[in-house]
């Protein structure tokens, strides 16, 4: 049996493969060889074979048949075997496999091995992938090693303890005694990992946090030494001594100082020192400054220190390094709520970042800009933001447009400015505007009474230029329908009124109906607008013609509208002016709370909700139902028929409505249809409706549609009543209702006296 090929030879061979298929073939061949070698329980070459398997695993091929072999390697006495075995365990095994529990004993033995590098391997593996059970079993060993004087092992044990605590938080207490002298270590590795361990404990337990607050002076001292000490070759990074340790200490100080006046005061000086003395020419210095700023902002620092921190961020914004600018914008976004004025001072720099080439920076700058808009700077800021809206990538346009609308609504200096701003957004980013903006804008325009003529004129002119942007077209159609009369009469005060005839306006609206660019929703808007103009324009015949044409449109929505409008012209012309008159000022109904803008188009990847940032742009969603768009068809029908429906009875979940018709040919007979509905959770069975009328009337009750009224308003029972009223007396009725609900019989009597006059006159 020839020796299995060496690892590096295998790598070389596989790399010569010219196609995926060729590679796969080589791999399969080698895997087969490795498998048979494993079967033969070959100790000599196990290590080599597992190493090869790990390589192939990295290329994406399955390697699960090597899992047990890793365990055998770990159990071996040879260091080489253990090294590869543990590596294999970390790569191929995780707590989802039962196999890995078998490691526990090996690890336990190796934790007590005479060679520190073997102990190190065990600690590393446990700290990387130990399951909760393993952690429970081995926590004691880790705790022992945490107290050793061997700094190589102590630092690893500290991080292993962190892992144990993450997996089994209840075990945290047992590590407390061992933490006693951790910070007196001189060894930086131990110091660093100790700070990590302390941080983990403080983050998880308020008691621990309180307990460790006494360490603040010691931490401050260590940090001071790091800054003041001279050059230390072992830990130097670009002239800074152990930046990793500095940052970790700053973070622990942040946690200890938060909401605690005394601790915060104890660290004020050192924070100021770090903030002013750290070299900022390289990334490493800025990393420390960044952490310092985060700490200053989080603890109870004095205001001078806070201003210093914000100024550091301001300087970051001017740095050539993109990463630093990005980090500054992110941090400013976090602090803008609490230190608004300080951040305002850097507004112009922030606005400049809108022009940055980097997508991530642009997005942060946009969010921050919106957060900084207020009554004083609205005009200037809006100019910049609108310019940004013009030139930014499509992924930003929706959010930016929404932000502009919101800011304009909050801080508009004048109605005209507001309308102009809206127009600007609609014309430049019209296709990206969110759907719910359309009803919001319509409401806004309706309520700006004095601007109607100006608005409709500007919207009309915009339509002449471009009908491709649907939100713009929809708002414009709606306005023309409402205010078309102002448009043709040339009443605009704000700017030069344009000369436009009724026919020209109707041309434009009809153009929308036939254009391929218009969506079905837009067509609906256009048709309704045309209809509304029938009460505002004199060219009614033209409008009638258009409406009747669309009565046979294949678009069901459009067809239904056209048919209804036709009905308005034909039978119910007397209703038309009332129905189509000017909309009243709308009340804002339900306002949902501020919603975070989800970055649906952030950077280059799918949506991420910034859970750490306060909502930078909020969008209240108003439920505005535009009556002119969503006709209540039942209401319309009955309105057209002249007699409004009424509710005769409404009790215990049973509701009975009456609708009316005049019977032909006898006008003395009122035909009433009852509609019974049931809002309770159970059906009403054996439902019987009975009615009685005064002697001068005659009553005929036809068969009901059913005697089960379905629960939860899922259907109605109808029944027709014919009432003869030759003496045209006021109609009165007594009704009796019986039904069974949830097993018990219910009976009720009621008088119905609220008949509308038209029903009996």
């Amino acid at each position, binding site marked *: 049996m020839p020796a299995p090929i060496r690892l590096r030879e295998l790598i070389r061979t596989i790399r010569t493969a010219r196609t995926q298929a060729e590679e796969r073939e080589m791999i399969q061949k080698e895997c087969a060889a490795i498998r048979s070698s494993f079967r033969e329980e070959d100790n000599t070459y196990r290590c080599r074979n597992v190493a090869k398997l790990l390589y192939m695993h*990295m290329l994406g091929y399955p390697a699960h048949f090597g899992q047990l072999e890793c365990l055998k390697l770990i159990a071996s006495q040879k260091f080489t075997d253990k090294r590869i075995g543990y*590596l294999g365990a970390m790569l191929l095994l995780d707590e989802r496999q039962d196999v890995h529990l078998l490691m526990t004993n090996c690890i336990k033995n190796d934790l007590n091995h005479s060679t520190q590098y073997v102990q190190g391997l065990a600690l590393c593996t446990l700290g990387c992938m130990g399951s909760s059970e393993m952690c429970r079993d081995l926590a004691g060993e880790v705790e022992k090693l945490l107290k050793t004087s061997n700094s190589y092992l102590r630092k690893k044990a500290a991080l292993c303890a962190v892992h144990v605590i993450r997996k089994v938080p209840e075990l945290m207490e047992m590590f407390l005694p061992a933490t006693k002298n951790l910070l007196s270590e001189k060894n*930086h590795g131990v110091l660093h990992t100790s700070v990590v361990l302390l941080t983990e404990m403080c983050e998880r337990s308020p008691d621990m946090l309180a307990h460790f607050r006494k360490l603040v002076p010691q931490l401050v001292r260590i940090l001071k030494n790091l800054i003041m000490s001279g050059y230390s070759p072992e830990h130097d990074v670009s002239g800074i001594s152990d930046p990793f340790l500095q940052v970790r200490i700053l973070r622990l100080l942040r946690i200890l100082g938060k909401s605690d006046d005394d601790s915060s005061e104890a660290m004020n000086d050192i924070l100021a020192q770090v903030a002013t003395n750290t070299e900022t020419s390289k990334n490493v210095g800025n990393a420390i400054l960044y952490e310092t700023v985060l700490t200053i902002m989080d603890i109870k620092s004095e205001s001078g220190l806070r201003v210093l921190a914000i100024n550091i961020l301001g300087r970051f914004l001017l740095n050539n390094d993109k990463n630093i600018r990005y980090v500054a914008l992110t941090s400013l976004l976090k602090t803008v709520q609490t230190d608004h004025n300080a951040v305002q001072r850097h507004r112009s720099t922030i606005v400049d970042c809108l022009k940055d080439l980097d997508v991530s920076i642009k997005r942060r700058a946009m969010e921050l800009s919106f957060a900084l808009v207020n009554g004083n700077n609205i005009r200037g800021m809006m100019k910049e933001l609108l310019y940004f809206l013009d030139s930014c990538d499509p992924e930003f346009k929706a959010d930016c447009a929404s932000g502009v609308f919101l800011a304009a609504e909050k801080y508009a200096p004048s109605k005209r400015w507001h309308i102009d701003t809206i127009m600007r957004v609609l014309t430049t980013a019209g296709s990206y505007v969110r759907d719910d903006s359309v009803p919001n804008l319509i409401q806004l325009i309706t309520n700006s009474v004095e601007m109607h003529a100006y608005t409709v004129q500007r919207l009309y002119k915009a339509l002449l230029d471009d009908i491709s942007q649907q939100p713009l077209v929809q708002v414009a159609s709606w306005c023309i329908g409402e205010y078309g009369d102002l448009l043709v009469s040339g009443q605009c005060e704000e700017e030069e009124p344009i000369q436009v005839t009724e026919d020209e306006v109707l041309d434009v609206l009809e153009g929308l109906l036939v254009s391929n660019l218009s969506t079905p929703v837009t067509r609906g808007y256009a048709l309704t607008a045309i209809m509304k103009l029938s009460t505002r324009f004199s060219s009614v015949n033209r409008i009638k013609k258009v409406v009747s044409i669309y009565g046979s449109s294949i678009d069901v929505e459009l067809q239904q509208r056209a048919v209804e409008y036709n009905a308005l012209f034909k039978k119910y012309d007397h209703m038309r002016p009332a129905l189509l008159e000017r909309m009243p000022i709308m009340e804002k109904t339900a306002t949902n709370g501020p919603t975070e803008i989800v970055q649906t188009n952030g950077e280059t*990847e799918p949506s991420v909700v910034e859970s750490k940032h306060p909502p930078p742009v909020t969008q209240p969603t108003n439920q505005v139902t535009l009556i002119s768009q969503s006709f209540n068809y039942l209401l319309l029908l009955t309105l057209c028929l002249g007699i409004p429906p009424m509710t005769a009875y409404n009790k215990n979940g049973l509701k009975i409505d009456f609708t009316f018709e005049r019977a032909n040919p006898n006008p003395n007979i009122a035909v009433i249809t009852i509609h019974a509905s049931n809002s309770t959770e159970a059906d009403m069975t054996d439902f019987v409706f009975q009615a009685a009328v005064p002697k001068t009337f005659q009553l005929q009750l036809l068969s009901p549609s059913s005697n089960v009224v379905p629960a939860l308003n899922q259907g109605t029972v109808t029944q027709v009543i014919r009432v003869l009223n030759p003496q045209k007396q006021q109609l009165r009725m007594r009704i009796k209702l019986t039904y069974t609900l949830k097993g018990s019989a219910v009976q009720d009597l009621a008088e119905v006296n609220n008949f509308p006059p038209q029903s009996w006159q």
Partner: protein
Amino acid sequence: MMRFLLLFSRQGKLRLQKWFTPIPEREKKKIIREMTTMVLARQPRSCNFLHWKDLKIIYKRYASLYFCLAIENHENELLALEVIHRYVELLDKYFGNVCELDIIFNFEKAYFILDEFLLGGEIQETSKQIVNRCIESSDMLQEDDSSEWYEVELFG
């Protein structure tokens, strides 16, 4: 803490993967695909930070290799850049002017070095010299072993 570290070439070939939390194999493959796509699509002069799910992705290109480190949201991204840089320096010292081929042919060494620098998603040693010394000592232990088996060369 750090969640994972990936090294991949400009063609998207994986050269090293270190995971600090337990993740199913299929999920790992998916993440690797997403990371390589995202990072390779970045413009040359963009900033080195990305957002992905609830993590920050810090990436940096060194010669033909991309180093991609995922950290939790509250971690310091500027320091993460230093972590990547420190790892590159360690590799460089060990291999002497390290290049991608070194990492391909000696991937297990790259892991050993990483395991002396990071542990459980945190930094375990901040001194370059100490890490290098440990690796050298461990390597010597290995040679001690193989001297008993002189006819068998375990790593070609």
